[in-house]
Each structure stands twice: as C-alpha cells, then as structure tokens.
C-alpha cells in the first residue's frame, strides 16, 4: 500500500531530505522542486508533500497523510491526536522564558503579562508553575514586546540566544527541548503497519548512527 508523508517546509526541509537520502529513499524530486507541492519517491511507493508545520499535523490527523515531520514546538502548541514515534534529532532548539533583567517575572508582584507566538505552551508552563498570567498572542519578533512594554516577559523558541542578547533580554528558565519529530496517523499505523514500520525502521537506523 502506498504511504504519504507531510513534510514541514522551510528550516526542517533540508534536514529531513538529508535523512531520507541516507535511509535510501529517493527525495530527488524534493530537491529540485520548482512550484510543485506533491512529490513521488522514484524508488518506492511513497508520496511527499511540503506544507507548513501546523498543517503537517492537520493532514496527519485527518489521515490524508499517513506520516508527518514536524517540530516539537508545533506539536506542543497543537491539540493533536497522533502518534509521535521518533525524535529525528534535527532542528534542535528550546522553549525559554525571558524578560528584561530589571523585570524578573518570577519575582514580580501583581498582574503579569506574557507575550508569545505559542500561547498554549506559555499557558501550560505557567499553569504548571502555579502562576496565573495573562498571555498575549504575538505573531513575530516577540522580543520587541517586553522592550516596548506590551508585556513583562516572553515565551519563545531559542536556538543560539543571539537575538535575545542583542535586545537585552535574559533567559529566566528553559521550558523544554525541541527537535523535529516523526508523527503517525493512528488509523494508518494500524492499517498500513508493514509499510510504516519499514519506513520508521530505516529512518531509525540513520538517526541512531
């Protein structure tokens, strides 16, 4: 039976292609893709699509794609119902809490506002800490928000920390580590077990080396 895989466009794309290559799949169509969005593996019955991270989860959840490659950040922010079977070990970064040094939110008395592109992650984190905060959704350049006084602190992804440092923000806590994950539709895993199992096995061999 044919299987289909929803890959995340952008940052993770190249890393994923490298892994597929090493596992002896044929993602050559993905390398010179032009404007195409659906790609056929030339050596086996696999279809790849390139989609945005959050959409990868949606496609897999509905079973339109059997598997998906997506960052843990997106998984945490979604309310999904898929199996998360492998850590691909690429696209590594972390979720952090940061604020201006003079405004440590863990010491602040009174109402706290947190800016984030990831409101669910932010809410869950503070809920676990037993803190009641107001989360404000920000679409990009989250570092700007505390500087301009829109909020006290931020919850964001950090790769190297350069952007934070350049904007004078300090990391107060590291929430969790993030990397690309392989997710599987629950029904597909059961109906196409042999095919999916083989795919996972080959990928596993590559990432364990």
């Amino acid at each position, binding site marked *: 039976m044919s299987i289909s895989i929803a890959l995340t466009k952008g940052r993770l794309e190249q890393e994923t292609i490298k892994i597929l290559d090493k596992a002896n799949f044929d993602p050559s169509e993905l390398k010179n893709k032009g404007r195409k969005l659906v790609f056929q593996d030339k050596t086996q019955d696999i279809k790849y699509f390139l989609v945005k991270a959050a959409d990868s989860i949606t496609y897999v959840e509905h079973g339109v794609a059997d598997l998906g490659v997506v960052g843990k950040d997106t998984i945490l922010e979604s309310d999904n119902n898929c199996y998360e079977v492998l*850590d691909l070990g690429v696209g590594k970064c972390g979720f952090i809490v940061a604020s201006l040094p003079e405004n440590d939110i863990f010491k602040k008395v009174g109402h706290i506002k947190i800016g984030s592109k990831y409101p669910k992650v932010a809410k869950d984190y503070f809920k676990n800490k037993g803190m009641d905060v107001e989360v404000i959704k920000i679409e990009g350049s989250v570092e700007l928000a505390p500087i301009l006084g829109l909020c006290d602190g931020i919850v964001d992804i950090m790769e190297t920390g350069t952007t934070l440092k350049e904007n004078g923000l300090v990391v107060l806590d590291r929430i969790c580590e993030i990397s690309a994950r392989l997710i599987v539709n629950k029904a597909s895993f*059961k109906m196409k077990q042999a095919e999916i199992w083989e795919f996972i096995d080959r990928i596993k061999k590559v990432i364990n080396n």
Partner: protein
Amino acid sequence: MSKKNILPEGTRDLILEECIVKRALERDIDKLFEKWGYKEVITPTLEFYETFNHNSQTLREEDMYKFFDNRGRILILRPDMTIPIARVVETKLKDVDLPIKLRYTSNVFRVHESLGGKRNEYTDCGVEFIGLEDKESDLEVLVLALEALKKLGLNDFKLEIGNIGFFNGAFKNLEIDEEYKETIAKFIEDKNLKSLEDYLANLDIKEEYRIFFNKLPWLFGSKQVLEDAKKLAFNDDIKETLEYLEKLYIELEALGYGENVTFDLGMIPRLNYYTGIIFRGYGEGVGNTLLRGGRYDNLIHFSKSYVPAIGFSIDIDSVVPNVKFNNSSEEVYKIYYSQKNRIEAIRKSQELRNQGYIVDLLTKDDIDEIKIVKGGGV
C-alpha cells in the same frame, strides 16, 4: 432583518445521497444489534452537566456544549451515550434481571478545536452489555463488533484488541507513586517514544521494568505480539492478561475472524474508566478510529456494588464518505398527471406503493392521460 443562513461550526446538513447512505448504514447496524438481542434505548439529547462530571470521566469541561436551564443549572448536549445508559440502568432498570443488553443510535456532541475540520455533532451506533463478567461476555461483544465492521462495506478492516490489565499489572511492580501512572500511560497511549524514554530515565525503577515500558508502545500487530510480550512478562498479572487475550484470539480465529483481529498492548486510554479489554476498529481509507469500546466494570453502580459491563460504539459519519452510493432506480415509479385525472393518478400511485414501490407524483398540464414511468431515481 437579515436571516443568518450559516451553520454553527462543526455541524453540517446532510442531503440526498449522503443522507441515504448514512441512514442505510444506521439501519444495517441497528438491525444487526437487534438480531443479537439488544434492546433499543432513546435518551434525551440534554443532560445535566453533573451526570457527566464525575471522576472516571476524562472529557474536559470545555469539550462539552453547555448552557443553563431556567433555574440556572448547567445542562450539556450529551458528549457520549455510555454515561446516559449507565444513568438509565442505575435508575430505571435496577430491578431487572441481569444481564441487560442495550443498543442505541444517537447523535452526540463534542466541541472540537476551531477550524480543525472535525465534526462537533456525529452519530454513534453502539451497544452496552451489562451485568456479566469478562469471561462471560467479552467474546460475544467482540464478535458483534467484528460483524458490525463487516456491515460497513469497507475493503479491509481491523479490530484491534488491548487490555488495560496489561499496563496496570505491570505498573504494580514499579513501586512508584500513582501520580506517575497517568503520565506514563499517556506517553504509551500516544506512542510518544521520546518523551516516554526521557521520563522513565528520570524515575528510580529497575532496568528490567524500564525496558518493558519502553517496549510497550511497540507491542502491536498480529498475534505474534502476544508471544513477544510473554518473553517480557515479569509477573503473574501480566501473564494472565496475555493468556486471556490469547484465548480470545483462538476463539475468534475458530469463528473465522483471525484475519481481522490484531493487538495493541500499548493501548491504554482513559485509565480510570476501562477495567479490562479495550478495542478499536479501523477501516481502509478511514483516517480516524471508527469503532471504540471496552470493558468498564466500575461505572454502573447498584446499591451494593458495581455492575460489570462492556460496550462499544461506531462513528457512522466517518464511514459515510467511503461507501459507494448504490442507486437502484428499479423500485421507483414516476406518475405524471394533470388536473383532469388527479384522482386516478393518486389511486394508481397508492396501488403501486402497496406493492412496495416508491412513487413520485408529478403534475404536467398538457397531458390527457396519466403517464407512468418506471425508474429514474428519486
């Protein structure tokens, strides 16, 4: 004032073919349940929130549609049918001889995340078998589930069986706090290997157990997994569970269902709810779980003790797009008539209806005699 011609999110109108297919499926499944001796129950669409808000209920508050009655009490649109049936049995059937076999075809309601493309109202067809222990009723219910899946007309389907006792039995040996249990169960249920591994690595447990729990999510597939699991079994509870599943398999195989039965020992949903076997049905081309069921011996409570029960339900709507519409125009007649001969036309139509045909009456001004045409669809 303008009329609002749109539907609330997650709901939809079903028309023509979709409707025919859905009703046909419902009827087939309902008929099957009836033939197995299950009696139908109809319960209100509305219930009190309190009925659903008890500790073994894992639905979140925000997953239910809520509103107030005229005295300010919280009402909900029922999110499933098992709880209402448990309520009916506890209150109205408490003096009836056990076992009780009940069936239903009902719409249930869940609030899903916005714009996720999921249905918030869908039809569940299901049964509940109340009053007998596992060994006395599991097999029958599994066979009925398989027969129901067969009725859906899918190219291929699988009924996957697990047992909550497998995880619970193994967890006993860990000698760690119950609070870890749910987290570990969740990771195993979601086959979230990485998180499970990291979580177990931080717990102070024997290496043997760590390996066992890390393997659990992978213990699914054909009957072979029962053999594999036996090698890992480290206490009698686990062994017993495996032997029980093996026995069920042998019986199902003898009945001719071997091909369609698989196992997933890492299936552990709703830890506080299920108490024995759990099972799910999957079909070729259907992206979600289309049948769910299991044993719940701690839900229905009579004055002195709990009453064992098992049941399952089928999400009919998820199958509808996969069913080919079979339009037979053989049973349909169209009768064209004018004002002059309408009495004759209606008489004739009744005659044909009594013979079992569908008759569509249509007026046509310019004809002198009624015209009867066979076929053409509805």
